[in-house]
């Protein structure tokens, strides 16, 4: 079994959805239920592969890459087909494999206008292949290809099945991301040509992420490193999205169909933060140290700006979108500390945000379907009309604002705490200021979410919806799609160690470069992280 997983596991989990998409292409478009079944089967097969991988994963060695596949691919550009799974990839892989089947379930009777479930589900499966591949790729070009493969299905999803303003939103999404990834590709090439083997002093000429992490930028002048990091910073920062590059996000989220928003929030944004944790920081630790205060600054600006943006929104979906900007700010703050504690918190934050905000977008989609509007001022009294829907919204909002005992807490609180004591070589005073600002951000988060709850769920139903028969409580497909996410919010809230224990060894390995550079990161925070994880 383990042999099979070693040889085929990661390849299968990546390409099973793509095979499903190919099969669907061959089936004529009018067989709608067949398409739904094939999509369901493909995404469940991938999830089953994921369960096998999770079962076969050696948790004692979570810091090293497992189930590695390493084959020749495009020799002419020195790019290889290398996949690997370690503690950083594992939670994100699991998140992706869980969210996509739930989205397929939700799509069962929620195919957005103008219909055509065949194309819609094919795009979703291609998207899954791209996302899974990005989290598993251990070669920069392979990573880049998967990173780009994600772009097109989402472009079409927003551009064809989106709301009123979909053309503008989809093109904006595409161009912002493409701009970022263009600069990112340049940085990858610069790494390729400039990296040298520290042992022999010869040019490395490889895109192998394992080798580049090992050399950790050795032999590249700091000035060049800073520029290379800048390219990756823009590439990943656009995807996160970090403060000045975030403007595509509210538009894309607002216009995207429900399932598109869910995937965008749950997984796509993580590709950016994952890139920081997997590529930018470990490969160029010295440059990361130079950039850390600036990343931290943009992160806290994002936290405050996102929260203030939420307070100004009149549209529920747009409000949730802005809350993503704030939450990803916490994740980036954790990464900017360059400590194992902060990065562990960041990865937890990615998973928690994926589950919670994904769930919020599901809810927004269902509200839109019942009320045909997301205008907050027109909604109200949901607890009276559709009590379960209202309670779930309340529960998820609590999780989102970081209530202890639910998953959201473990993303935010340790990230703030980690800023108290950033890595050696990074200004402690600066980060303590950031810590205070970020803490204020959590108060604002409580403010906008409670305000949202008050206006939408409490009070009497407004006259225009009072006797509307369309407003029903949670349906069966919705329960099926939502129950796993709701359970995960509680489980990870009560037992955060489930994730921390997996990520910690890998994170320590990834920032080894920083540790060596600074002569050892602060041991106390590392211990605190481990204690919190346990």
């Amino acid at each position, binding site marked *: 079994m383990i042999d099979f997983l070693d040889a085929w596991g990661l390849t299968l989990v990546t390409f099973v959805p793509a095979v499903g998409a190919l099969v669907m292409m061959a089936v004529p478009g009018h067989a709608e239920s067949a398409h739904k079944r094939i999509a369901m089967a493909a995404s469940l097969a991938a999830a089953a592969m994921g369960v096998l991988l999770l079962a076969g994963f050696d948790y004692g060695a979570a810091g090293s890459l497992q189930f590695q596949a390493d084959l020749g691919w495009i020799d002419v550009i020195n790019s290889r087909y290398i996949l690997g799974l370690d503690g950083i990839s594992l939670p994100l892989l699991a998140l992706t494999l869980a969210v996509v089947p739930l989205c397929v379930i939700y799509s069962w009777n929620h195919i957005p206008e103008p219909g055509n479930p065949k194309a819609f589900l094919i795009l979703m499966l291609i998207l899954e292949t791209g996302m899974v591949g990005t989290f598993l790729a251990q070669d920069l070009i392979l990573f880049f290809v998967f990173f780009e493969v994600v772009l097109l299905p989402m472009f079409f999803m927003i551009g064809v099945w989106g709301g009123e303003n979909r053309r503008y939103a989809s093109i904006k999404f595409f161009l912002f991301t493409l701009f970022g990834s263009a600069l990112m590709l*340049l940085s990858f090439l610069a790494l390729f040509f400039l990296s040298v083997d520290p042992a022999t002093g010869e040019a490395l000429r490889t895109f192998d992420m394992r080798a580049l992490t090992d050399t950790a930028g050795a032999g590249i002048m700091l000035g060049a490193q800073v520029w290379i990091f800048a390219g990756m910073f823009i590439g990943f920062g656009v995807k996160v999205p970090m403060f000045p590059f975030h403007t595509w996000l509210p538009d894309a989220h607002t216009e995207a169909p429900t399932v598109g928003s869910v995937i965008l929030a749950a997984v796509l944004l993580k590709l950016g933060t994952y890139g920081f944790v997997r590529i930018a920081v470990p490969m160029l630790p010295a440059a990361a140290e130079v950039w850390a205060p600036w990343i931290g600054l943009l992160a806290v600006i994002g936290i405050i700006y996102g929260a203030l943006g939420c307070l100004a929104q009149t549209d529920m979906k747009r409000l949730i979108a802005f809350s993503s900007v704030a939450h990803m700010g916490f994740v980036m703050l954790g990464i900017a500390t360059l400590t194992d504690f902060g990065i562990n918190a960041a990865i937890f934050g990615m998973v928690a945000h994926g589950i919670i905000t994904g769930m919020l977008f599901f809810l927004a989609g269902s509200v839109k379907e019942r009320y045909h509007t997301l205008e907050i001022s027109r909604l109200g009294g949901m607890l009276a009309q559709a009590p379960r829907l209202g309670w779930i919204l309340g529960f998820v909002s609590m999780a989102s604002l970081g209530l202890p005992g639910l998953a959201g807490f473990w993303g935010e609180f340790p990230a703030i705490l980690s800023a108290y004591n950033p890595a050696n070589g990074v200004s402690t005073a600066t980060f303590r200021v950031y810590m205070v600002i970020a803490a204020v951000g959590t108060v604002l988060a409580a403010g906008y979410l409670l305000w949202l709850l008050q206006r939408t769920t409490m009070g009497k139903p407004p006259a225009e919806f009072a006797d509307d028969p369309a407003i029903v409580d949670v349906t069966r497909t919705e329960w099926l799609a939502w129950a796993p996410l709701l359970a995960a919010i509680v489980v990870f809230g009560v037992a955060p160690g489930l994730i921390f224990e997996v990520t910690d060894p890998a994170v320590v390995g990834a920032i080894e470069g920083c540790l060596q550079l600074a002569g050892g990161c602060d041991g106390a925070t590392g211990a605190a992280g481990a204690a919190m994880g346990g």
Partner: protein
Amino acid sequence: MMAQIGPVAAPAVDWAGLGPVLALALGAVVAIMVRTLARRLPDWVDWAWTALVAAAAAGAAVSLWGRVGAEGPFNAVGDQFGVDRFSLLVTAVIAVSVMLVAPVLHGFCQREGWSGPEIYVLMLLSAAGGVVMAGANDLVVLFLGLEILSIPAYVLAARNLARIQSLEAGLKYFVLGAFSSAFLLYGIALVYGSTGTTNLVGIRDYLSRWVVLSDAMLLAGLALLLVGLGFKVAAVPFHAWVPDVYQGAPTPVVAFMASAVKTAGFAAVIRVFVVAFDLRSGDWQPAVYALAVVTLLTGAVLAVVQRDVKRMLAYSSIAHAGFVLVGVQAASGRGTAAAVFYLAAYSVLVIGSFSVLAAVSGPGDSRTGLDDLRGLNSRRPALALGFTVLLLAQAGVPLTSGFVAKFEIIAAAVDARSFWLAVVAMVSAVVAAFLYLRIMVAVYSSPDGGDGAGDAEESAEPLAVPVLTGLVVAATVAVTVGVGVLPSVLHDLARDAIPALVAAG
């Protein structure tokens, strides 16, 4: 008096080495002769013969490729015309372009009601000129090739007599082309004045032996050569003719100009600057750097603001030329290989794209506005899908040939430490991507201007796409995706396509 004139020494001619040129030129002559004598032949004979002749030229190039591999590069006519793998690959690209354009031209001519072989004959002659340019070892031969290439192209541009824009395109192309030829000739004269020869081997030899103390004349010559060739490859600021000519000329002819003519122009640029003047690369590199920057940015930005798809693709072809210039600027083996790869991949892409436009442009060849493409998806889903792939490839999306081509160019630039040029190129690629997205959005929206995408029921009048055009689009899409997934074959060909200057011996 007469007694003093000795016999003229005829240069040694290797006829096999001239195979591709002879095939194209003789093929053209035979076509016009036979069609003049036998007027009743069916129309399809013209395109079939053209494709056959081009295939023969490509076949000759392939057999010479093997010979060059075994014996090394050699000269075909004295020291005037060289045969090396660079010129052979360029020859193959030109020949394949002709093969792809000919069937599209057939469908186009039938729709427009044109008969007669002259359009095919002119295309073959023009291609022959391109092949001469690719192998020229002497600036005078280069000039001859350029004129053989250009003069038929002027006529081709003006072929659509029913359209005033086509006549305007022909005239504009002719006047500006003649202008650029004058620049080129003056440049050749100045280079001759400072080095004493027009032979590229001789120039290189001279520059490696002697230090030119007052090199103002040489530099002026280089500058004028760059201007003259810059017109042909449509580098900014010598690009003004491109949008008008591309918009006015018959669409399949534009496909030919954007692929074969551009490739031949760049072959000349590489032969003259990268190979013959490699020792003076410090002098011309900054100029090409500047040209590349302006070309990339102007092409991409102006493409975005157009309303006519042919004009859009005209400006985007300028941006693509900027990419090739980035490869030229690297002045390295990697840069040359990347430029050749780009030209080969782009030629296929652009022929596919313009073939789609040729099918859509309707009788009169004038329906090429962005609005005319609306609803293409509901009228012709397969054609729309093919067009989408081609546009994405032009934008440089991974798993298409366009991505690999751009990747190689950027890699060459980074390897040559031209980081900022690489940044400009990537920014230009992103700006240009907006253009392709605009076209794609139009293709996938409904014809009435609303945006109910994908409603197949209310499709407008069916669009007649000639079978041959459809096949050409399918072939170009297949090549685009094939090269994108498995780039090794074309990459290895481009890597082996090393230009060489062989002294007469």
